[in-house]
């Protein structure tokens, strides 16, 4: 009986856990209610090269919008999973990921990447040599391309964050 109640609670809670987050809400959560103004990071040739290496294709755009408060930045980046773009929000603080949230998932499958059990893996992750994450991320069967997309965007956000901090 207890097991049934637990399953029922989880089933009812699942939509809440997986609900997509609006950009405003993501930023409010990222900056504790005080959303900073939008800033732009222009892609230098070196950044383009690093981004292309991470994404396995050129980054789509010449500038990246971000929000910054001190050593804390937030990034909202699109990356295609299988066919459609997934919009992913990443908050980086002092060179490590503080939060990863899927803001919009448009694919027909692979949506498990929206759940905290997956995105929590990125918390406290940083970069090591070769712009790779300093930890392994467990994949999800049937959602490989979505997992790769979220992982790539996380790496990209860390790269962009380091560039912003370097520029002062």
């Amino acid at each position: 009986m207890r097991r049934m109640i637990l399953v029922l609670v989880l089933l009812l809670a699942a939509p809440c856990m997986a609900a997509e987050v609006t950009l405003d809400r993501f930023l409010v959560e990222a900056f504790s209610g005080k959303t900073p103004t939008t800033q732009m990071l222009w892609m230098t040739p070196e950044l383009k090269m690093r981004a292309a290496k991470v994404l396995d294709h050129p980054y789509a755009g010449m500038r990246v919008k971000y929000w910054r408060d001190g050593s804390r930045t937030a990034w909202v980046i699109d990356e295609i999973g299988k066919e459609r773009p997934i919009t992913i929000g990443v908050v980086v603080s002092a060179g490590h990921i503080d939060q990863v949230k899927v803001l919009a998932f448009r694919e027909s499958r692979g949506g498990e990447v929206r759940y905290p059990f997956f995105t929590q893996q990125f918390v406290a992750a940083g970069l090591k040599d070769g712009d790779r994450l300093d930890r392994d991320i467990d994949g999800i069967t049937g959602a490989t391309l979505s997992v790769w997309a979220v992982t790539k965007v996380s790496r990209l956000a860390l790269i962009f964050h380091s560039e912003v901090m370097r520029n002062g």
Partner: protein
Amino acid sequence: MANFHWRFFLHRWHRRIGLVAALFVLLLVITGILLNHTNDIGLDRMPLENSWLRAYYGLDKGGADTGKPASYRFAGRELQARDGQLRLGGIRLTDCPQLIGVMETQDQVLVVCPDRLVLLTPDGQLIDQADSLRGIPSGLSAVAVQGNNVFLRQGKTSLGVNLNDLSVHPVEATPDVAWQGSQATIDVTPMDAITWERVVLDLHSGRLFGHFGVWLVDLMAVGAALLAMSGLVLARRRHRAR
């Protein structure tokens, strides 16, 4: 004698079903293997260019003439919204169900889709883009430029665009602004591009030929099952006879 009669019966029908089903089974095998490796082969990234298949899937249907540009030429290439994608010279830039308008300034080109703004360099490189998640309202129907100011129309509302960050804000557009686009309500329906993966999927399931095709594939599947069963029985009887 009775056993011999059944074996002969099974063998004859095994052969008949096999002959009929052979081609279909081959087709299923080929399409099945293709679907198993669709990502590796790139079937899911190959847009459909065949005119017959495009007509079959209802692509390239002309809508009512609403004054929106079907395509726009700049940087020596054609910019158009096709199969839900914005393409420049045939190369995909981003999602875009319809081309509402294109505004060229001295150093930038603003492309307006119903729910997205796309900023390009004069030679067609992507600078930036913003969609509904990033504050662009859906249902944009027209665009206009007056001096250094760019305006958008959403229903009866006029919006100003800040090209520095592609944000929009309500404004009062002056009456002599020349709008490019349509005053009609635009049905913004996201449209996934039809790729060869879809064609192979429909061929595999029989849906390419409508309900008849689906039933035929079901029938062939039943035939394959009968082949398997009769084959097993025949093999067992032959083994016993030895």
